[in-house]
């Protein structure tokens, strides 16, 4: 055990060492951070109410309205910030939930094995093959007043399978390691073993899973919102695009209405994925650029 701890510390330092030198990680992280800051402190940049009318109608970006105004003279920037918040919320909640579910199911299946594993596997594969988006559509149609939280939860509930799969595989490989055996021999309870012995040794993996789920959740939410099955109240980047299209922003040439939200999503999710490659290289020396 003592040895493993030393190994652990060493790994951590090494991680920091390479993390700070990995450009992919740095670039990705800073982009995500940038948007996060905008979402968090955007309200200091504008005090306009995203829903409020009254601005000049359909006016292009200007010093007054950074992202211009909608067809009704609503401030696109204000909407953008509101949408950004919603986006991060969905990502965190939906992605988080999916990751947690994936972990639980993956760990248990991988660690317990046997019948438990079998049945969980079947479950995973089922949810895996079901075109979950179609399912989401229907569920959303069924809930006639929908909220952001609700949306996130449903996304989380449908997005976990592949995470579960991956984590199960990892657990399987770790489970036979000597330190796990030691723990088992020393009579530790399975759950404790999972969380004190196995989980820490695949932290990198879990982190990366979360990042991917985060991005995935954002995309799904945007899609739902765009076709009008998102939250029935409030704003999101997807809803912005929906309105822009509904109100003829394309033929009227109000590009500032539909470009920012999509660009933001693409940038955030892209940056997240990019971060992931970075992390992958950091954790896995084989992949480092030589």
């Amino acid at each position, binding site marked *: 055990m003592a040895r493993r701890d030393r190994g652990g510390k060493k790994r951590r330092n090494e991680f920091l060492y390479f993390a700070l030198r990995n450009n992919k990680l740095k670039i990705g992280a800073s982009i995500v951070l940038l948007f996060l800051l905008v979402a968090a402190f955007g309200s200091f940049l504008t005090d306009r109410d995203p*829903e*409020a*009318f*009254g601005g000049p*109608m*359909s006016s292009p970006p200007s010093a007054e309205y950074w992202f211009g105004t909608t*067809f*009704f*003279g609503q401030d696109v920037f204000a909407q953008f910030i509101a949408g950004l918040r919603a986006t991060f919320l969905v990502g965190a909640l939906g992605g988080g939930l999916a990751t947690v579910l994936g972990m639980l199911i993956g760990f248990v299946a991988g660690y317990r094995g046997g019948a438990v594993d079998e049945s969980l596997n079947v479950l995973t594969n089922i949810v895996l093959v079901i075109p979950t988006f179609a399912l989401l559509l229907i569920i959303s*149609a069924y809930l*006639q*007043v929908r909220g952001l939280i609700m949306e996130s939860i449903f996304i989380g509930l449908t997005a976990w399978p592949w995470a579960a799969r991956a984590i199960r595989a990892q657990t399987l490989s770790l489970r036979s390691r000597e330190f796990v055996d030691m723990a088992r021999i020393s009579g530790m309870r399975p759950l404790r073993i999972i969380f004190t012995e196995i989980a820490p040794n695949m932290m990198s993996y879990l982190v990366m899973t979360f990042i991917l789920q985060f991005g995935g959740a954002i995309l799904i939410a945007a899609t739902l919102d765009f076709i*009008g099955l998102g939250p*029935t*109240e409030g704003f999101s980047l997807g809803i912005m695009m929906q*309105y822009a*299209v*509904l*109100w*003829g*922003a*394309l*033929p*009227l040439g109000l590009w500032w209405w539909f470009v920012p939200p999509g660009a933001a999503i693409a940038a955030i999710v892209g940056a997240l994925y990019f971060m992931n490659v970075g992390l992958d290289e950091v954790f896995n020396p084989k992949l480092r650029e030589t």
Partner: protein
Amino acid sequence: MWSRSKGVLSAIVVALLVVGIMAFGQVYERTETIYVSGAAWGPASTWNPFQPGSLANTTGTLGFVYETLFNYDPLTNEMIPWLAESGEWITDISYELTLRAGLAWSDGTPLTAEDVAYTMNLGVEYDAMWFAPMFDYVTSVISIGDRIVRFDFTDAPLYQEFDNNLYNIPIVPKHLWEGRTEEEITIGANENPIGSGAYLYDSHESDRNIWIRNENWWAIDALDLYPAPKRIVDIRFSSNNVALGSVIKGEVDLSNNFLPGVAGLSDQGIITTYFEGAPYMLSANTAVLFLNTTIAPMDDAAFRRALAYAINVDDIVNVAYAQLVAAASPTGLLPSLSDYVDDDLVADIGWSYDPAMAAQILADNGYVDVDGDGYVEAPDGSAISLEVTCPSGWTDWMAAIAVISDSCKAAGINVENVTPDYGAWNTQMQTGTFNMTLNNWAAMSNTPWTLYNLLFRHPIQTQMQSGNFGRYDNEALFDLVDALAAIKTTDIAAMQDACSAIQEVLLSEVPMIPLWYNGMWAQYSEAVWTNWPVDGDNTPSRLPTTWSGYWQLGGLMMLCELELVD
């Protein structure tokens, strides 16, 4: 193996594509074809003229294929003899109608009084016919010879409704319908319809209906009418984008979609609208804010009145609709029925946007902000928090209820705007589980009775399916509406008196609040066709619309007056 599986798959694709393609088909001659949009909301599925519900998707079944006895011109407010040459009341309870000579179905069979009688009597036979209730006061419809049809009545005919039916009941060919079962007649799809009208069913795709001119149409000789376009392609656009884009490009000649931003385009002369300036569009129907009078505080006339003053209709007109609509008369009647508006009453007890007045009324009636949250509480001190709803995705209305919520809040009344899905909205409305909601289900009509029949639909039932959703219960008023229904449409004075009586209650009790007139959305491209209906002297003034049920209200005449740009 990739290439192999790819080969197989692409083979399948091609096969399916070929199957999907019919052997016959052609590219349409632009100068023979008019492209219209805005009527259909879904793929065509039924050509049954008795199915008002689904007909919208096959605009033309009613008016093109099947015709009515009369047409009606809302702009001049006159009934125009159509299949009927004339119709007159022989006595107060007996109406005799003479068909034109030389009418014929598109299959060549002559159209006779037999057909008319047959059609009318379907209402006797089948309750599911929308006009069946007419036979509560119609005792019999019989044909006399080839051209005479006589209607006999009980002693209390509802003249208003009857007239309305005269230009709404489509006449179907007896020889083709006789054999059909009840369900075929009432809800059957009636593919490849055979009628008497100016156009024939040609074909349809999921996103278009195509009609072709009936060269043997009886009216070509009889009325010297000849629709200019040989072919009508009625397109269903999924979104405003596409519709707007297509009109701008001149790919679509007439769009009856609600297109935000048209005001600007019209000013720039990129597209043409009926009026050169605001509201650009004719008014089509009245958007009414129904108030659920069964729940406090909306059971209090004073509070309702305050609301009426509080709502900023100008913002709805200028912001939500960008000037494409006009504010409604508090009486709710369309401009085409302005003869029946009692102007003195309106001046006297009518209302318009006036926050101060709203505040005044609230204060006078004990609605004051007790807890200082910026919103008034009810006289009994209980907090007031209401919701105004419209279906999610109905963008213009969503914008409108946002304005309503804003202006109410500004006036100190806590109203949130909420947008449930259509299903939920509809259920709430019919079961009376809403607070305030928008509705505009009264179609353009020859009589104020149509609107008031919607607003004050009675008796109050658990399910209010088509009107009085706020369940405003006032026997006296209901009697007034029934009285109006029983007045001959020729007796204008009597109608006006009846209307004044109704309006007096409406304006003083404010059971619901007429807010604005939804426009007869219409924007034309002058790229190929011209001589569109526009406001002004010696210009064609017709309803420029393709909406289902409006062809006999002037739409068809518009087609006859169109000219090619040379």
